[in-house]
C-alpha cells in the first residue's frame, strides 16, 4: 500500500495541473452577446442575428480609452440556417471567440416567426444550458427583429440592455408587459392559458415598446393596442404604476390624471343553471391624483366620489375591450381556462378540445372595479391663474 502512495499523490497533483482547462473558458475568450433576433425567411429558414458587444467600448465610464465616444460598441452578426442552433454555430466562421449566450438581455422574435409558431424557434434557447431563462422576450412589429437589435442608441452603448430597460418601464406605462423566456415556456406549457408577448417597433432614432401580440398555442393570432394591454394587466392583477386619464367630474372636456398606487385582481368562477361558466373579476385599485386641469376644490367628497366612478368606468372599459379582442381571436391570455381546470377538472377534461374555439369566445365576464383615491398630491386645488 505504501508503495502506491507516491503514485496516487502524483495522480492527484496531475489532476489539478493537467485538467486545468477542462470546461474552462476565460472571460477574455468569449464574445459577449447582449441580444438575439430570430427572423423567418420566406422559405421557412431562420435568420438568427446576435448582437455582440465590445466590452472596452461598452463600459459605462469610457474607461482608459478616453474620448473614444464614437467608437462602435457592438456588432450584429447574422446567419441563415434551417434551425436556430445551426445558424448560431454557423456564425463562428465570422466571430473569433465562442458566443456567450448567458449575457443576452433580450430576445426579439420576428413577426414571421410569431405567425408561424415560436415553439420551434425557442426550443434551442430553452434546451441549451448557457441561455438564461430570465432573458426578456419581445416580438418585432413592422420591422424585422434584426433591425431592432441593429438600432444604435445615443444614451447607451449596450443596445440589448437599453431595450431591456424600455421593456421594464412597462410597469409605469401599462402599455406592454414584461415576459421572461421562462414565462414563455410556462405559458406555452400551461393548459387553459395562452401566451401574450410585448411588441417592439422602431420609432425614429430609438425603439418603442407598445402593445402586445396574443397567441393561440404558439402562433400569433392578434394584436392588442396600448389600452387593451393595460386592461389585460389590470385583469390579471399585474403590479402597475401607470397613470389613467379620466374626465373631470365637473367638466367632461377637462382631463385629470390618476396614478395607480396599488392594484389587485380577484377572479371568480360561477356556473349558470345551464352549466356554463361565468367569470367575475373584482379589481381593487388605490390611486393618487397626479394632475388636474380644472380648478375644482378636491376636498369635496362628492367630487372625489365622482372621480372614483369615472376611474372605475375607464378601467372597466379597458378590460372589457381587451377581453372582447381576445375572445374574437380565440386567445385565452387571461387564463380563464386554467381557472376552470383548477375548479372543475372534469368539466375541463370534456371541454378542453373546444374551449378556445367554442366556449371561451362566448363566456360572460363581469368586471367590477373599485377605485379609492388616497391622496391629492401636494396641492389641494389647481392654481387659479389670474
Amino acid at each position: 500500500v505504501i508503495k502506491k502512495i507516491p503514485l496516487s499523490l502524483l495522480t492527484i497533483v496531475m489532476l489539478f495541473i493537467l485538467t486545468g482547462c477542462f470546461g474552462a473558458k476565460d472571460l477574455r475568450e468569449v464574445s459577449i452577446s447582449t441580444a438575439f433576433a430570430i427572423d423567418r425567411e420566406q422559405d421557412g429558414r431562420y435568420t438568427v442575428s446576435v448582437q455582440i458587444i465590445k466590452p472596452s467600448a461598452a463600459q459605462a465610464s469610457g474607461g482608459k480609452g478616453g474620448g473614444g465616444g464614437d467608437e462602435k460598441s457592438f456588432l450584429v452578426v447574422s446567419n441563415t440556417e434551417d434551425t436556430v442552433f445551426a445558424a448560431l454555430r454557423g456564425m463562428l466562421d465570422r466571430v473569433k471567440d465562442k458566443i456567450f449566450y448567458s449575457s443576452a438581455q433580450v430576445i426579439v422574435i420576428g413577426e414571421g416567426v410569431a405567425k408561424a409558431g415560436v415553439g420551434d424557434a425557442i426550443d434551442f434557447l430553452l434546451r441549451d444550458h448557457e441561455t438564461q431563462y430570465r432573458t426578456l422576450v419581445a416580438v418585432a412589429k413592422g420591422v424585422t427583429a434584426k433591425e431592432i437589435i441593429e438600432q444604435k442608441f445615443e444614451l447607451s452603448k449596450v443596445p440589448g440592455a437599453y431595450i431591456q430597460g424600455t421593456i421594464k418601464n412597462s410597469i409605469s406605462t401599462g402599455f406592454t408587459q414584461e415576459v421572461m423566456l421562462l414565462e414563455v415556456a410556462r405559458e406555452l406549457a400551461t393548459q387553459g392559458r395562452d401566451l401574450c408577448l410585448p411588441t417592439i417597433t422602431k420609432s425614429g432614432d430609438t425603439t418603442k415598446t407598445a402593445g402586445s401580440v396574443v397567441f393561440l398555442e404558439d402562433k400569433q393570432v392578434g394584436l392588442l393596442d396600448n389600452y387593451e394591454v393595460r386592461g389585460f394587466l389590470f385583469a390579471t392583477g399585474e403590479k402597475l404604476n401607470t397613470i389613467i386619464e379620466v374626465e373631470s367630474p365637473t367638466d367632461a372636456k377637462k382631463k385629470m390624471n390618476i396614478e395607480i398606487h396599488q392594484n389587485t385582481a380577484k377572479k371568480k368562477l360561477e356556473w349558470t343553471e345551464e352549466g356554463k361558466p361565468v367569470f367575475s373579476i373584482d379589481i381593487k385599485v388605490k390611486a393618487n391624483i397626479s394632475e388636474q386641469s380644472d380648478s375644482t376644490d378636491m376636498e369635496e367628497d362628492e367630487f372625489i366620489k365622482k372621480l372614483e366612478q369615472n376611474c372605475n368606468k375607464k378601467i372597466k372599459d379597458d378590460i372589457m375591450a381587451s377581453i372582447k379582442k381576445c375572445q374574437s381571436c380565440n386567445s385565452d391570455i387571461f387564463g380563464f381556462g386554467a381557472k376552470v381546470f383548477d375548479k372543475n377538472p372534469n368539466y375541463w377534461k370534456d371541454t378542453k378540445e373546444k374551449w378556445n374555439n367554442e366556449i371561451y369566445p362566448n363566456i360572460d365576464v363581469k368586471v367590477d372595479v373599485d377605485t379609492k383615491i388616497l391622496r391629492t398630491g401636494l396641492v389641494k386645488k389647481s392654481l387659479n391663474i389670474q
Partner: protein
Amino acid sequence: MSMLDKFSKKFFVKSKKNDQEQNQENIEEKIPKALADVKQRLKQEFELCDDFSIREIEFGKQKAKLAIMFIEGFTDKHVLSQNVIEPIIQYCDDNKEITVVEQLEKNVISASDIAKLSSLQESIDAILDGNAVLYIDGSEKAFKVGVRAPEKRAVEQPDTEVSIKGPREGFTENLKTNTILLRRKIKNTRFKIEEIKLGEQTKTNVVICYIQGVAKDEIIDEVRKRLSKIKTDAILATGYIEQYIQDDKFSVFPMVGNSEKPDKVAAKLLEGRVAIIADGTPTVLTVPFLFVETIQVPEDYFGEYYFGTFSRLLRLLALFIAIYLPAGYVALTMFHQKIIPFNLMITMAAARQGIPFSSFLEALFMIIVFEILREAGIRMPRAIGQAVSIVGAIVLGDAAVSAGIASAPIVIITALSGICSFINPPLMKINTILRIVYLIAANALGILGITILTIVVFTYLCNKRVFGVPYLTPFSPLTTEDLKDSFIVVPIWAMLSRPKAIANDNNRVRTKGKSLSKEDEDL
C-alpha cells in the same frame, strides 16, 4: 498518518542515550569538601570562560575560607558586594555553638533570595543562571544567592498586539518580570507558577502557570507530561516548545495560543487555560488553543459589546475573503460567467481584454508578488521598507495594469485578500497557503473544486483536538452556552460562566450577573 510518522522518524533521528547517561552522573556528583578541590573542579568546568570569576574571602575569627563564584555582568555587582561580601568581611562575632554554614545563613548574608545546594552540577547551573554561589571550605554545602542583574528592556507596549483601550504593558524577555506581570493581575495563592528547566545546552527556565481549581487537572497534567517529554538541546524561544507540545506533529492550523499581553494571558488563565512562559521570549503560550480564539481580541471585552460583535463578524468575513476571494474570482471568470451580473461582467470583460494570461496565472502571479512584498517589508531594515512599498504599489501594481500584464480587478482582489489576511494574525500563515491552494482548486474544477476543498478543510478542522478539547468548540460540537463569546460577544456582566469546554466543571461561575438590582435602578 503512518507514512508521515515514518518520514519523520527517518529525517529527525535523535541519538540521545549518551547525553542522558552523562547528565545522570553530573547530578549525582557532590560538592567536594575542600575548597581547593571545588576551585579546581569549577575552573576545569569553566575553562576558557573568561566571564567566570571567583572572589575569595575569609569569614569571622575562625578565618573560614569562602569563595564566591559568579559570572561577571550577569550578576548585580552592587547587590553582591553590599549584601553578601560586605557583611561577611565585617562580621566579627564568633558564635561557636553553630556551624559556619548556619551562621552565614542566619546571621550574615543579607540578600533575600538564598538557597542551600549540595550537588555540584546544581551549583554550576545556578552560576549559569545569573546567581552567585558561595562555597565554604570544609562543607559539602554551598549557597546560591540570587543577585541576578535586572534586564535592560522595560515593560512596554508590544508591537504585535496593539490595544487602544485597555492595558498597554507587554511581556519582556525576563521570565521573572513576566510572572510578576501575571501575579500582579491575579493576586491569589491558587495562581500557581511551576518552574522547570528545558534544553540540555540552554537550560532555559520554563514555567507553567495556571489557576488551581479553575483549570482542569487533566489539562495541567497533560501539559506537564508533554513538557517533561521534551528532549532537546536548545529552547531559544517559546516557538520551540509550541512545536513540541502540539497535538498534531504536522499541524498547519495554530494549536497553541501566542500572546505578548499580560491582560490577555491573565484572561485566558481565568478561563481555565494553562500558560507556558520561557525565559528569553516575550511571547507566552496558552493551551488549549481553540479556533474561536483567532477572532477574539481583548478589546472586544473592554468596550461596547455590540461593536465587539460587529468586529467579530467583520473578522470572520475578512477570514473568508482572505481565503476565498481570489479563488472565487478565478472560478467565476473561468467557469461560471453565467452568474456574474451583466454590468459587472462587462466591466470585468473590459478589464480582461488583451491580458495575455489566464485569470488563474494572473491571480497566482499577483499573490506571489504580494507575498514577496510582504516578506520584504518584514525583513528589510525600516529605512528601506519605505522604498519597498513605493516600488510595490507603483511599479508592480499600477505599471502592471497599464502595461496590460495584469488586469485591474485582480490587483484589487489580491490586495483586498492580502489585507484581510492580516486581520487574524494567528491564521495569517495558513491563510496565505490556503489562498493559493484554493486558487489551484478553483482553476481545476471551478466552484466544485472550491467546494470539495472546503469540505476537506472543514473535515480536517472538525477532526482536530487540542489537549482533549475539540478544535472547533463551541461551533462543532455545538456548545450553546459558550456561543456567548464566539461570533458574538455579550456584555461582560452577562458572561456568567467560564467556557464549558475548558474550565473545571466545579468552578465555572464567573459572575453573578449585573450587580445593580431593580431597586437600585429605580433610584
